[in-house]
C-alpha cells in the first residue's frame, strides 16, 4: 500500500522529460524491431510482454470480430429492410431504436443487461448467461458482444438506410424496374454495389466506436483482453506493457483502415478511374 509520505510528486521539468522520452523511445523501438518487448514484474516473477500481448490480442480481436460481424450483418439488413418497405410503421421504430443505440453509453447498457440477467436469475432460479468471465461460447460472449455491437449496429443501420434511400431514387433503378426486373434482382445487381462506399466508410467509423468501447466492455464483463490488461497496466504503471498494447491497438486500427481504403479501389471502378 502506498502511504502519503511515500508518494513522489511528479515534476514538470519539460526539457528533462523530453530528453528522457527521446532516449527511452529510441531504446524501446530498437528493442521492438528485434522482437524484444521487454519484461514486467508480477508476483509470479518476470513475465514477457510478448506472451501477454499474444494472449490478450487473440481474446480481444475474437470478441471484436464477432461483435462487428453481427453488427454489420444485422445493421445492413435492418437499413435495407427499412428502405425497401418504406412503411412508416416500420421505418420509424427502426430509426428510433438506432438513435437509442447511438446515444446510450456503453457502461449504462452493460449495467442494464447485467441487472436484467440478475432479475432473470432471481425469478427463474437458473442463469441464462454468465455476467462475467471468459469463454468461447454463447454463455460468456452474449452480453459483451451485445454491448460492443450496439453502437456500430445502430450507426450502420442508419448509414445503410440513408445510402440505400438515396440510391433507390436514382434514375437507373427506375430504368431497371421498367425493364421488367423484380425488386430482388434490381437490388442485388444495381443497388448493392453503389452503396458499397458509404457503407465501407461507416464500417471504418464504427470500428473506431467499438475499439474505443472495448476497454469499458472488457472491464465490465472481466474479459481478459487488451483493454482490461491495458487499464490494469496504466494503474500499476507498467510502462512497457502500456506502450506495447497501445501501439498494437493503434497499429491494428491503422491497418484495418488501410485495408478499407484499398478495398474502395477494388469495389468501385469510379475511384480507379479518378486516379
Amino acid at each position: 500500500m502506498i502511504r502519503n509520505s511515500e508518494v513522489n510528486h511528479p515534476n514538470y521539468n519539460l526539457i528533462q522529460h523530453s530528453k528522457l522520452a527521446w532516449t527511452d523511445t529510441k531504446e524501446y523501438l530498437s528493442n521492438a524491431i528485434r522482437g524484444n518487448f521487454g519484461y514486467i514484474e508480477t508476483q509470479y516473477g518476470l513475465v514477457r510482454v510478448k506472451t501477454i500481448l499474444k494472449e490478450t490480442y487473440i481474446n480481444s480481436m475474437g470478441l471484436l470480430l464477432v461483435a462487428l460481424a453481427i453488427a454489420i450483418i444485422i445493421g445492413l439488413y435492418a437499413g435495407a429492410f427499412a428502405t425497401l418497405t418504406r412503411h412508416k410503421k416500420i421505418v420509424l421504430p427502426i430509426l428510433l431504436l438506432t438513435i437509442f443505440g447511438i446515444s446510450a453509453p456503453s457502461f449504462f447498457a452493460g449495467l442494464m443487461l447485467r441487472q436484467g440477467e440478475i432479475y432473470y436469475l432471481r425469478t427463474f432460479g437458473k442463469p441464462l448467461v454468465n455476467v462475467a468471465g471468459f469463454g468461447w461460447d454463447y454463455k460468456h460472449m452474449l452480453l459483451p458482444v451485445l454491448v460492443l455491437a450496439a453502437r456500430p449496429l445502430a450507426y450502420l443501420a442508419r448509414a445503410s438506410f440513408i445510402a440505400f434511400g438515396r440510391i433507390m431514387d436514382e434514375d437507373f433503378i427506375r430504368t431497371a424496374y421498367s425493364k421488367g426486373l423484380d425488386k430482388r434482382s434490381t437490388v442485388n445487381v444495381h443497388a448493392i454495389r453503389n452503396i458499397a462506399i458509404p457503407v465501407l466508410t461507416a464500417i471504418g467509423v464504427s470500428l473506431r466506436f467499438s475499439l474505443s468501447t472495448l476497454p469499458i466492455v472488457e472491464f465490465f464483463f472481466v474479459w481478459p483482453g487488451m483493454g482490461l490488461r491495458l487499464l490494469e497496466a496504466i494503474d500499476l504503471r507498467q510502462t512497457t506493457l502500456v506502450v506495447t498494447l497501445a501501439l498494437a491497438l493503434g497499429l491494428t486500427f491503422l491497418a484495418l483502415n488501410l485495408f478499407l481504403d484499398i478495398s474502395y479501389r477494388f469495389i468501385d471502378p469510379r475511384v480507379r478511374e479518378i486516379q
Partner: protein
Amino acid sequence: MKSIKKIFSFLLNPRFRYNEMPELLHEGSKQFVGEAPSGKHNSPGFRGLLGNFPLIFGGTIVFILFLVVLFGPLIAPINPYIAGKHIVPHYDSEKEEWINPPLSPSEEYPLGTDEWGNDILSMLLYGARNTLVACAFITMVRLILGLILGAYAGWSEGKATDQIIMGVISVILAVPMLISSMILIYSLDIRKGLPVFIIALSVIGWTEIAQYIRSEFIVLSKMPYIEGARAVGARNFAIAVRHVLPNILPQLLVITFLELGAVLLLLGELAFIGVFIGGGSGIALGDETIGIEVLTQSNVPEWEAMLAEGTDGYAPSPLLYSLQRLRSSFL
C-alpha cells in the same frame, strides 16, 4: 441589449454596414443593395418563442442547471467538503438497530446516502459545479484548438503545415480516446484535480472538430465570394474571419452541444474505470495477514464519481440508479 445586438451583427453579418456607407456606392447600384436585415420583420418575436415547446423545455433544464451551479451550495443541507459530516456504521440505541450506509431516503436525507454515508442531495448540488464546469471548460478549449488548427490546415491545404496537423490528428485518433486520456491524466498527476482533466481531455479531443472545420474550410475557400474578397485586397486572416467563419457558425453551434454531450459521456466512462476528479486517494481495507483491498474513493463531490460508485456493488442505494437514468436522459 440593443448595443450588444448591434455589436454581434457588426461582427457576424458583413451586410450590416451597407446602409452606413451609401456614399461609397454608385448611384445606380443602390437599388441592388437593399435594406440591412433589421430583425423585426424576420424574427417571430417573443410570442413565437413561447409556442416552441422543445425550446422552452430545453431552456428550462439549462436554466435549472445554471441555478444549481450558481446557488446549489447555498441550499445544500450538508457541506461534503467538511470531513466528519458523513454517517459511519453504528448502533442506534433508540431504534435498536444497526445503521449501516447506504441509507434509503428519509426526512433527514431526502435522497438517501451513498456507500460512505454522504448525503446524496448535497453531493449532487455541490458536484454540479465540478462536473459542469469541467465539461464546459473542456468543450471550450476543444472548440478553440479545433477551430484554430482546423482552419489553419484547411486554409493551407496540401502544404507542409496541413500535413503535419493531419498527421498529428491521425496519431491521436489511432489510440482509443479513453486509453490516451487516462494515460495523460495519470502522467500529469490525477491528484491535481480539475485542471489536469481539462488539459488532458482537451489536448486529446480537439481532433474531430479540427477535421470537420478543415473540410468546411476547403470547400468554402474555393467559393467565388472568397475570390472577390481577395480581389478587393483583403488579407488571408481577414478573409478567414470575416467571410468563411460566419458561414460555418451555425454548424459550429450544433457541434458545441454535441461535444458537451460527448465530453460528459467520456467523463462518465473515465469515472467508471476509476479516473475521476478528486480521485487518486485510496482507502485500504483489511491488514497484511488477510490481504489488502484498496478502494479508490473520491473526496470531491462530483456526478461522474457518484455514478461510478453506484455501479460498484450489486445493490447500492436504488436512488443512484435513478440518478444514472436521469443523467443519461440529460445527455
